[in-house]
């Protein structure tokens, strides 16, 4: 676990960014997740995936602790255009990539989280359903809504 955690930090931060929409909360989330993972390392089952285990912890910290704080500060609701997702001077970044990313961040949290888990982190529908504690059908309908929204936004 100790060997695996440092390499996971950027991915935890990114997941935190997808959920919170701002870099500061993302950092807090990643750090809180690492701390809890270390504290609970005895609960980690050898042979299972550390990244997935940490993602579950992160999701639960977000839902139970940080989301309310973030929303209270008004930061969780920052429109994605204003959220500094990609550093503005990254001129080498593909414009298309920046645009899709920013459109995805405008989706409701439930949709962008589901899209992120399935399309970026490679969860199967069933794994995403378990992780989010929702039926598989709901995962698929969130993907369908998310895809449709991205499709029409990108067409504009």
């Amino acid at each position, binding site marked *: 676990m100790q060997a695996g955690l440092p390499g996971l930090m950027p991915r935890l931060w990114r997941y935190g960014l997808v959920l919170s929409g701002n870099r500061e909360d993302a950092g807090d989330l*990643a750090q809180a997740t690492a701390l809890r993972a270390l504290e609970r390392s005895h609960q980690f089952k050898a042979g299972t995936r550390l990244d997935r285990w940490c993602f579950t912890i992160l999701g639960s910290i977000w839902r139970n602790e940080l989301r309310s704080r973030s929303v209270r500060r008004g930061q969780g609701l920052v429109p994605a255009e204003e959220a500094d997702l990609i550093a503005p001077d990254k001129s080498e970044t593909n414009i298309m990539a920046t645009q899709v990313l920013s459109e995805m961040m405008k989706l409701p949290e439930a949709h962008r989280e589901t899209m992120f888990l399935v399309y970026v982190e490679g969860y199967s529908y069933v794994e995403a359903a378990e992780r989010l504690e929702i039926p598989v059908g709901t995962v698929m309908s969130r993907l*369908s809504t998310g*895809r449709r929204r991205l*499709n029409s936004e990108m067409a504009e």
Partner: protein
Amino acid sequence: MTNSSFDPKDVADEELVAFLDGRLAPEEAAEITAALASDPALAERIDALAFDVDSLREGMAQLLADAPEIAIPRVRTTRKAWPDWRMVAAAVSLFFVGLGSGMMILPAQSEPGWHQAVADYQVLYTAETVTGAPIPAQTRQAGLDLVNQRLGLDLTLDALSLEGVRFQRAQILQFDGEPLAQLVFLDAANNPIAFCLMAASSPAQAATDTQIKGMNATHWKDGRFQSIVIGPADADLIRDMSQELMGKITT
């Protein structure tokens, strides 16, 4: 082969998503593929669900590359770590007793020893930690600027191009509330090596080679800083790096 009872209108959007994602059973996917050829309405529905997954992944990969350094918090007293910790504390206080000459014996628990803290941190590093997400040159420079500013140094990227290692990044950590600079290098075999230093007004002390947590280390004091070079790398390399770095920070 199309099933005669198959009607594209009955296909839910969710199913089309699974089709686009390549997660439908082969026979179901074949039905949709077959229907697509002759059913423009179905093709339109599919088009409306399409989006550029590759661009999303590319943007997301860029985020990883831009992720800030996030220090992993140290867990203080888990039950398992405790005996180990006490041994370390005892060893550290012995170390301080050994230094003798006017130095007070420090309370074992409040002074875990910064070498140990650095070592605890360093053992968590793998080559992947450092190479996993490439560090933009800008971030590297920004880290170095911060180190220079917090420790009153004047290090340049040129000064850090040392024999046999590649400088990767600089960051400020803290130990007991004091800024601790960490400069990470990789050797030819991608072993991560850290050069750490923090302010210390205690008298100069010659470089000493040692082993901490199975890693080679060289530490010294120059009257202004206390420094250590540590990593799971060759002892000679660590010593040579130390000699070179010593010259860079005593200006």
